């Protein structure tokens, strides 16, 4: 259906509920429109509150985590510790202060950030509660699982080590 037919067949409200149809502008008009928008955005961003900044930064972290969890591939740099460290940066807290707020030892927090300890469910739920549900515990859980899944798929050392405990095997199937 052509744009003209859309405007003939439907009311403006019906069109706005179903479409976004761009206005046709000359290059000069387009440049002027872009300049006006840039100015309005600049002005509008100045009025962002600290709370809105924090919420925007937290949502960014959540959405990036979501996108990574949806992907099939494993990235060894995007660990539980990496995202936890980013969370601390977003909320602008020192390790000591944050450890106190979720009532874990600062050393444990450092170990988690450096991926030297695996997080348990309690930690994941405390992270969810601390973020006021912006980053759900299940996201932290899936992140830790993604690392475990990669590890169990690819770790040849564990296969070599555990093979000594296998005294019988099924035959190789053709």
């Amino acid at each position, binding site marked *: *259906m052509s744009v003209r037919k*859309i*405007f003939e*067949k*439907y009311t*403006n*409200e*019906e*069109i*706005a*509920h*179903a*479409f*976004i*149809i*761009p*206005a046709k*502008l000359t290059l000069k*008009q387009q440049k*002027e*429109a*872009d*300049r*006006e*928008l*840039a*100015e*309005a*955005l600049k002005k*509008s*961003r100045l*009025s*962002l*509150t600290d709370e*809105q*900044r*924090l*919420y*925007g*930064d937290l*949502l*960014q972290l959540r*959405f*990036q985590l979501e*996108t990574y969890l949806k992907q099939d591939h494993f990235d060894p740099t995007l660990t539980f510790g990496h995202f936890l460290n980013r969370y601390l940066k977003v909320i602008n807290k020192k390790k000591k202060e944050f450890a106190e707020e979720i009532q874990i030892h600062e050393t444990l927090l450092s170990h988690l950030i450096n991926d030297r300890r695996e997080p348990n469910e309690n930690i994941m739920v405390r992270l969810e509660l601390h973020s006021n549900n912006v980053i759900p515990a299940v996201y932290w859980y899936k992140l830790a699982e993604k690392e475990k899944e990669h590890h169990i798929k690819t770790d040849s050392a564990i296969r070599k080590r555990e093979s000594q405990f296998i005294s019988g095997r099924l035959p190789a199937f053709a």
Partner: protein
Amino acid sequence: MIIIEIAGKRSVPVIVERVEKADFRNITKSRFSFRWEELTKVAELYKLVFADKPIIIGLMALIDFPSECRIEIKLLASSVENVGKGKQYEGIAGCLIAYAAKKSIENYSSLASISLMPKTEIRQHYIKKYNMKPAGQHVFLEGGALLNLVNIYDI
């Protein structure tokens, strides 16, 4: 994300995904009003589909402007059976606009914004329905209103 089935008044889960080459077999001008394939040269295309079946019911073309922390919705269309008085589902455009907001927040955090440059006759409806602000020929969303939109559509 959900849309509302008008006849049964029930919520129906939907998801947004990138349009793939194979999708163009089902993206016809008679069903989606425009020649979408041509837009792949200048924009990224996204489709709204049911969570449990791959039927496309909405399309959107996005252009990213990293230097302005902005994503522009170049074009958006609901499928022909979802336009006007007899439409089957409510909320297709809203879900797609909220997804554009999500993409912008994912890229630009608190500086994120989305914009569109609608035809003059209908720009007031976007301002009213989505709380957008006017800026010359554009209307845009940023800050609290953008974050609210993402919350409303539960992305």
